[in-house]
């Protein structure tokens, strides 16, 4: 093996109360893709942040092309060609794509005024965007109007504009559709051929199998094994990540499956601001209805309209055969229609507030008395759901933002489950959640469906869709493109419908 591009040895990092990294080592060859996997809290993020200069290690060394490096700031790491693409993207939403591509390193005509050389930047932008498969016409669009997938590609294009040697991608596909993910794989292959080394962090093991040359597994801040070539299998990775076998990843123990009575019926529903055909749909008791589609197909918008966050432009909703009028989330909640939103950090939780605050928030109507919130009942509610969902938190007073993604997501479930839902709408139910918590959430969904809750699960994760859904509805450009049951539920069939029936 030639000299490694990046060599990390014996990295240690102590945070107050947590030993995040305890002697982690890894090597990365030029043009190689090394996936780093592990449950949340295993130390992946800390490792990446040290390599990218955001944190400095307590012990251990990092060598870049055999030279020891000590990055004190992300800017130093970037100057050396080590670039981290964050999970939460770091683009200026109010600027255009081209502005973002050159932010901080604008081409100028020189002189005291530093006049911008727009022609040069435009030409270079076209080239950079072409390398990530985006059309040149996107260059003048403001970031806020791009899909999450396109934003991701813009971040990569920005990295390509610099002399990048090591590109660190943190959950790059968490908000991408299947097609965008495929496009990303293509871009990664291109980068490899250009000799860029990639550290790839992902919870989606299918994806790791697809892109990684080697896999480095972390558990509790230590190396827990390395896999390469044919050893990279789902089971091998999971076993090393959790230190045990994970059977029944997609359980179907409690559910009866299809055939329940319709709980929620959407009749010719149209979402304001979208001109597509009306949507009709049934969510039935005791089943998990999976909803697939590309990002932008209108799935989230439809769910939000049913939940009362956005206005319905037409059509009616029926709950257990009775028409219901929903114009605000409070009405949906009162009717037992509950939404676990796609973006839990913005819509699902008040991050600076405590676990208990978040669990109580939508249940205060039941916890209140004329003398204020009943503290004993409230503490009881907190204890019940923290225990039942096995939320790993020191106490109910812990700020929610300090929990891992999986535990945060459990809080979002907990605040709704305290209300005995009739219809539970799950929008990307396990996004950014580690493997262990994922299994727990799937078991919970199964249990709820078994109790007769109608579960409507929107997901872009193909494994999750095929593993969990009893019935699959596919949306394409704001309308229902088709429904798949039983043996029809295959990846090919879903993709066919999601892409408008064209063969790929």
């Amino acid at each position, binding site marked *: 093996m030639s000299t490694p591009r990046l060599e990390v040895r014996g990295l240690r990092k102590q945070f107050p109360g947590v030993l995040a990294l305890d002697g982690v080592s890894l090597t990365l060859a030029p043009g190689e893709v090394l996936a780093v996997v592990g449950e949340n809290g295993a130390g992946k993020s800390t490792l990446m942040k040290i390599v990218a200069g955001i944190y400095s290690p307590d012990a251990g060394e990092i060598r870049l092309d055999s030279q020891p490096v000590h990055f004190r700031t992300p800017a130093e790491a970037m100057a050396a060609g080590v670039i981290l693409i964050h999970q939460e993207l770091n683009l200026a939403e109010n600027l255009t794509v081209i502005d973002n591509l050159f932010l901080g390193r604008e081409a100028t005509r020189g002189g005291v005024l530093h006049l911008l050389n727009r022609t040069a930047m435009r030409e270079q932008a076209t080239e950079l965007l072409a390398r990530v498969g985006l059309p040149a016409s996107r260059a003048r669009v403001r970031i806020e109007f791009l899909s999450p997938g396109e934003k991701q590609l813009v971040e990569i294009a920005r990295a390509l504009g610099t002399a990048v040697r090591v590109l660190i991608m943190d959950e790059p596909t968490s908000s991408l559709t299947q097609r965008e993910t495929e496009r990303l794989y293509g871009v990664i292959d291109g980068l490899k051929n250009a000799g860029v080394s990639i550290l790839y962090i992902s919870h989606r093991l299918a994806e790791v199998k697809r892109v990684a040359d080697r896999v480095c597994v972390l558990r509790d801040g230590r190396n827990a094994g390395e896999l390469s070539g044919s050893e990279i299998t789902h089971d091998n990775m999971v076993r090393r990540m959790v230190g045990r076998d994970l059977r029944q990843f997609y359980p179907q123990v409690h559910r009866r499956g299809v055939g329940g009575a319709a709980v929620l019926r959407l009749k010719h529903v149209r979402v304001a601001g979208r001109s597509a055909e009306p949507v009709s749909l049934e969510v039935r008791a005791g089943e998990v209805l999976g909803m697939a589609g590309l990002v932008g197909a209108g799935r989230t918008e439809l769910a939000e309209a049913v939940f009362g966050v956005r206005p319905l432009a037409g059509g009616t909703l029926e709950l257990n055969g009775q028409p219901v009028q929903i114009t605000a989330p409070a009405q949906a909640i009162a009717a037992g229609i509950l939404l676990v939103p796609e973006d839990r950090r913005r819509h699902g939780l*008040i991050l600076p507030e405590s676990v208990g605050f978040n669990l109580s928030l939508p249940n205060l109507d039941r916890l209140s008395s004329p003398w204020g919130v009943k503290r004993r009942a409230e503490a009881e509610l907190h204890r019940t759901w923290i225990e039942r969902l096995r939320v790993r938190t020191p106490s109910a007073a812990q700020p929610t933002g300090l929990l891992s993604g999986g535990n945060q997501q459990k809080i979002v479930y907990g605040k709704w489950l305290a209300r005995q839902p009739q219809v539970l709408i799950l929008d990307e139910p396990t996004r950014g959640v580690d493997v262990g918590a994922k299994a727990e959430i799937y078991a919970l969904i199964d249990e709820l469906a078994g109790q007769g809750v109608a579960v409507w699960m929107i997901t872009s994760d193909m494994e999750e869709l095929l593993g969990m859904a009893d019935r699959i509805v596919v949306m394409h450009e704001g309308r229902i493109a088709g429904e798949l049951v039983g043996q029809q539920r295959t990846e090919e069939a879903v993709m066919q419908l999601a892409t408008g029936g064209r063969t790929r």
Partner: protein
Amino acid sequence: MTRIFGVLGLLVILYAVLFNTHERAGSLSNLIDVANYQGRYGLITLGAALVIIVGGIDLSIGSVVGGAAILFGVLMMDGVHPYAAVPLVILFGSLIGAANGLLITRLRLQPFLVTLCGMFIIRGLARIIAQPSPYRGTVSLSNVREAHAAFEQPLLSLRYYLIGKSPSDGELLFPAQFFLLLAAAAVIGFFLHRTAYGRYWYAIGHSELAAKYAGVNVNRHRVTVYTIGSALAALVGVLLFLNEPSIQSDNAGVGWELYAILGAVLGGCSLRGGEGTAAGMVLGAMVLPVIENIVNFRGEKSDVIPFIVGMTLLLGTIVDELIRRRSRMYR
């Protein structure tokens, strides 16, 4: 909690300085005088702080104080009985708050702009209604007494119960305005810390979107809070009228919205919203009157007051930010 200890420490130091400034500074009558000022000032701080907690800002408070004082005087000159005039003036304040809230929520205008406009409009209204002949820009307690002898007794009672001034000689007997502040703070503290309302207000201040997705009627709560804030400001207008020899329409309450915001911030409210406690608001509001009293006793010109106030707030902000950074070390 650390924030409360910060402002508490500051107050202890300020009172220690005050006692050492002049032999009369520690006298009971002076302390009652300061406490009354703190009470008046604390009531508008409570209102400003609630608005800040839900992530807003109210710049019209000072004008509402001035406008309410003028309106109170003019109503009584026109023959409205004092006991009827007090609720009318508070209703006037509530309506202004509701209007601010509705403009901010329904039309989605920025709180800063809406209440900045309100600041000018209400000040303008106060000056317009106080402009004609009997007033010439000024209303006063003595004018009302001269015009309506029948109001003498009710006004003396109001002055006693709301200000603490003796009906016989006008001497300050007890800090009634401070007691009013404590009562209001207790009620607001109950809502803020013990009921669902407070939870919703903090939730809205931290993340309006997440509150909305949890079923909170964000708009209604924001309107409520602006209404409470302006109603408190109107009450302070009444107190101001009863306390002062006369009220000038062009300067009564000018700049008080900034004092109220300052008190709220010193008391632990973050201008980003979602933070603050009732106890903190009371303590934060107590700071400025003590500083002013110290300056007065030292015989320095009041010209130095803005400088001292500004420096105090700046230091407070810096210390607060440093504490915040320390506690943010995790992740």
